[in-house]
């Protein structure tokens, strides 16, 4: 065009202008400074601009700022090499802007600077049409955008001509992003590889095939399909592709698959019972573990599916229903323990957890249950519980044993401190309260007819009541209670006592051994719900009974209490024995002191006479004419006192001999009747002086083998005794003889001897009366009984205070002499003949 211009004339130039003006194209020329030099009529029409308005830099004709910047950069100054061949910008007009698509060319003229010619096609109408088209497509696009897919089309060069679909956002692309339009699929996928699955699919589609593919793209998995795009003549003009993002579906399916595999493994492993229940609660499927737990086979299940109610004991149905409600609310239930009924009818303990599972198109909800066999667990738990109980019991028993030991130790200490019988009884009653009893009593036989009783109560308010019980004495004939223990020597346990057993009006004795309403009333008031009586034994005899009483509390005595109480009672027995021995020792010392005092007295009395007689004799003989008769009387009296002293000394020696086991017995045959007559006769004057005239009743003869002197000594002792204590009343002496034995009785009617004293008057140094009133060594009866025993016989007394005494000597005619003398015990009335040596 520049070449032609050089060679044309002005006419030709005008004609050319006319052509330019005639064209529909908008034509501008721009100089090297970017200023518009000329514009054709089409331009002026399109813009309604006259010369004055279009003569300006070209960028000022652009409507949009970025377009203005772009144009200015290209034209000011003109950079020919960088000029685009095509330009699209919005052209300002007098009314609005037009979209114009420009072709750009440069005219070079040697005489002047190059001129840029822009020939533009007004695209405004086309664009508006396209806009309308796009608006009509909008609904479809909205729908497409909701799809989790990408839909696109390409031309045969695989340039993207259309793109839509919600899947774009997953690809980091904005919907309607035009930038991708026109982009080649190769560029989009950043590949030149024609075997790339997407590229390959497109290439296949271009050959008319339908091509599916799978692609992992930007961490998502797509299933795609590319089809050929055909025109009206069915020629392939491009491709239509659709790709679905299947990442989530595939993931879910895979997870499901894995889950199912795991479940299957779980089911197959039989570690845990798994059962499926339909919405109606029937067992539809179960693994081997579940079936074998309940003893069912698959056939059983096939023949008839049992319901959970059938398999559940009634007491667990409520728990199952609660679990069902929980599953309805949350889809699952917390594990809980229940029992199933096995096919055999046996209960099977299990731990169960369950969940609802969607099932069926009808929306019914089935469930799956996971069941753990708890039998071993229960067994272990039971065993552990048993062990725990045993351990607790053992600990309790140890504590109990410790407490008992402490009680025994404390009891022993308290008992051992007690020196008197009464103290021992009090200590025993005290020590069991309150550890073993609410209250307690110890009933002791006592020394004489009067029993001793000691009681203790843990409650100070009840002690006064208990004190009033001190006069209570159980009847020895009562069948139960302390009386029974006194008789049998065995403990008596009354674990649970009813009111009727303490009633005074019953037909028999009350439990405590009395019918007396007063102590019974007291005992009921103090309370007695459980009673334990144990014997306190000394040398095989029950000396006392310890009564332990549980008053109101729940304590009931049992065998263990018996053992403990008996242990305490045995310790008390030792203390009693000790107290008795101590008392005996004290008594023995007292008796010895008494004896020494009396012995001194008895020796001094004849000694006084003897001394006075000798001094008088001395005085008589010192006179100028001594009186021979007086001197003779003095000598005779002195001799009498000397003999008396000798006799006393003999007796003391006898005691020493008995103590040293050296009493000599020399038996010879003689007539005891004759000897008795002689002794009574010889002693008669002295008896008569005391007012105790003797009467003798004896057979003619009673011959036997005895020690004459010793038997005579016994008879003299007993007669002296009768005189001494006979209160001036007559004395009867009798002799009875059988072929093998003889019996001598000496009866006085004097002061008598109490039962208590009867046991001890035969002891060494013992006397039943005060030394102030009755002289004598107190050895007579002791020596006598030893002599009689040495003959194999016995000496005893029948007496009561104020009614006189009968001493009875029983002798075998031919004594069987034993070897040893009992030096220890006082000879009791009932004591067997002790052995005595003969030297």
């Amino acid at each position, binding site marked *: 065009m520049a070449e032609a211009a050089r060679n044309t004339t002005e006419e030709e130039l005008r004609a050319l202008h006319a052509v330019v003006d005639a064209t529909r194209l908008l034509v501008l020329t721009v100089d090297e400074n970017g200023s518009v030099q000329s514009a054709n009529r089409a331009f002026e029409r399109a813009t309604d601009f006259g010369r004055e308005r279009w003569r300006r830099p070209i960028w000022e004709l652009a409507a949009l700022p970025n377009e203005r910047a772009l144009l200015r950069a290209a034209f000011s100054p003109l950079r020919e090499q960088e000029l685009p061949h095509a330009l699209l910008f919005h052209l300002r007009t007098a009314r609005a802007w037009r979209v114009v698509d420009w072709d750009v060319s440069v005219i070079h003229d040697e005489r002047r600077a190059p001129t840029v010619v822009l020939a533009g096609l007004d695209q405004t109408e086309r664009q508006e049409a396209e806009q309308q088209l796009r608006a009509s497509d909008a609904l479809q696009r909205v729908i497409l955008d909701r799809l989790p897919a990408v839909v696109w089309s390409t031309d045969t060069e695989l340039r993207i001509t259309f793109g839509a679909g919600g899947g774009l956002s997953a690809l980091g692309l904005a919907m309607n992003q035009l930038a991708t339009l026109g982009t080649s699929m190769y560029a989009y996928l950043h590949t030149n590889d024609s075997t790339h699955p997407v590229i390959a699919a497109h290439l296949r589609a271009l050959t008319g095939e339908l091509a599916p593919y799978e692609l992992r793209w930007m961490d998502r998995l797509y299933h795609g399909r590319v089809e050929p795009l055909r025109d009206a003549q069915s020629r392939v003009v491009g491709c239509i592709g659709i790709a679905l993002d299947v990442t989530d579906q595939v993931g879910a399916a895979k997870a499901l698959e894995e889950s199912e595999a795991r479940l299957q493994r779980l089911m197959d492993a039989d570690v845990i019972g798994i059962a499926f229940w339909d919405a109606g609660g029937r067992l539809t499927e179960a693994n081997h573990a579940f079936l074998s737990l309940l003893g069912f086979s698959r056939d059983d299940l096939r023949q008839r599916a049992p319901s959970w109610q059938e398999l559940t004991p009634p007491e667990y149905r409520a728990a199952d229903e609660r679990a069902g409600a929980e599953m309805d609310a949350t889809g699952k239930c917390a594990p809980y323990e229940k029992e199933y009924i096995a096919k055999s009818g046996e209960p099977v303990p299990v731990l169960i957890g369950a969940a609802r599972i969607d099932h069926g198109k009808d929306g019914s909800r089935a469930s799956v249950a996971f069941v753990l066999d708890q039998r071993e667990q229960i067994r272990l738990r039971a065993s552990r519980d048993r062990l725990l109980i045993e351990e607790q019991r053992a600990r309790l028993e140890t504590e109990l044993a410790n407490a008992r030991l402490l009680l025994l130790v404390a009891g022993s200490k308290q008992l051992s401190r007690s020196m008197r019988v009464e103290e021992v009884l009090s200590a025993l009653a005290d020590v069991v309260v309150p550890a073993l009893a609410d209250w307690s009593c110890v009933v002791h036989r006592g020394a004489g007819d009067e029993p001793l009783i000691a009681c203790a109560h843990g409650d100070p308010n009840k002690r006064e009541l208990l004190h009033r019980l001190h006069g209570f004495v159980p009847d020895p004939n009562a069948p139960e209670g302390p009386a029974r223990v006194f008789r049998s020597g065995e403990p008596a346990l009354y674990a649970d006592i009813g009111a009727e057993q303490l009633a005074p009006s019953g037909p028999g004795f009350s439990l405590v051994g009395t019918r007396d309403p007063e102590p019974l009333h007291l005992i009921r008031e103090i309370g007695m719900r459980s009673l334990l009586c144990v014997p306190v034994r000394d040398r095989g005899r029950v000396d006392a009974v310890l009564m332990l009483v549980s008053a109101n509390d729940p304590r009931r005595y049992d065998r263990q209490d018996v053992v403990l109480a008996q242990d305490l009672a045995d310790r008390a027995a030792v203390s009693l024995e000790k107290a008795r021995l101590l008392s005996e020792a004290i008594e023995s010392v007292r008796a010895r002191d008494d004896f020494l005092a009396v012995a001194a*007295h008895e020796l001094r*009395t004849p*000694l*006084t006479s003897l001394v*006075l*007689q000798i001094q*008088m004799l001395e005085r008589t003989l010192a006179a100028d004419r001594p009186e021979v008769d007086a001197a003779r009387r003095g000598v005779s009296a002195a001799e*009498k006192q000397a003999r008396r002293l000798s006799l006393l000394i003999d007796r003391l020696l006898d005691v020493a001999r008995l103590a040293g086991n050296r009493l000599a017995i020399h038996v010879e045959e003689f007539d005891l009747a004759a000897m008795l007559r002689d002794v009574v006769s010889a002693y008669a004057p002295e008896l008569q002086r005391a007012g105790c005239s003797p009467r003798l009743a004896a057979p003619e003869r009673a011959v036997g083998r005895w020690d004459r002197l010793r038997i005579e000594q016994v008879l003299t002792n007993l007669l002296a005794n009768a005189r001494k204590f006979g209160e001036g009343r007559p004395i009867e002496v009798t002799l009875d003889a059988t072929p093998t034995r003889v019996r001598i009785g000496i009866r006085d009617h004097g002061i008598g001897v109490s039962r208590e004293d009867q046991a001890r008057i035969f002891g060494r140094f013992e006397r039943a009366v005060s030394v102030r009133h*009755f002289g004598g060594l107190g050895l007579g009866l002791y020596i006598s009984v030893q002599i009689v025993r040495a003959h194999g016989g016995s000496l005893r007394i029948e007496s009561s205070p104020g009614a006189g005494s009968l001493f009875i000597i029983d002798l075998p005619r031919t004594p069987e002499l034993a070897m040893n003398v009992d030096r220890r015990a006082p000879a009791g009335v009932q004591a067997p003949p002790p052995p005595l040596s003969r030297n």
Partner: protein
Amino acid sequence: MTAADAEDRVVLVVDDDESIRETLQMALELDGYATAFAGNGEEALLWLRKNPAPRLILLDLMMPGMDGWQMFEHLCNDEQLARIPVVVITAFGRDLGTVGKLPILKKPFDLQELLRVVGDRAQPGCP
């Protein structure tokens, strides 16, 4: 010798031992005393009620029936009898109790001592 003099020469011996009684009689007679005897307290009180008060009572303690202690108590409770001097004769070696402050002839005593005590005539011993 007047009757009163004669009465003043009487000594009452209270002792249950016959030999003691006999010996004391013989010994006191040597110095011209007359003696009366009782085997225990009861007998002695009976004698005292029937006879004039003796010069002295020689009182043994350990006797059957009423003993020496009891008799002394009776004497002291009787205004007349309480004036009679009492000398205890005893072989009892222990604490003498209520009669502990009386003059004592402890058995065995000798003749001279006996005659001195009787001759001196002790003061009445009742409190």
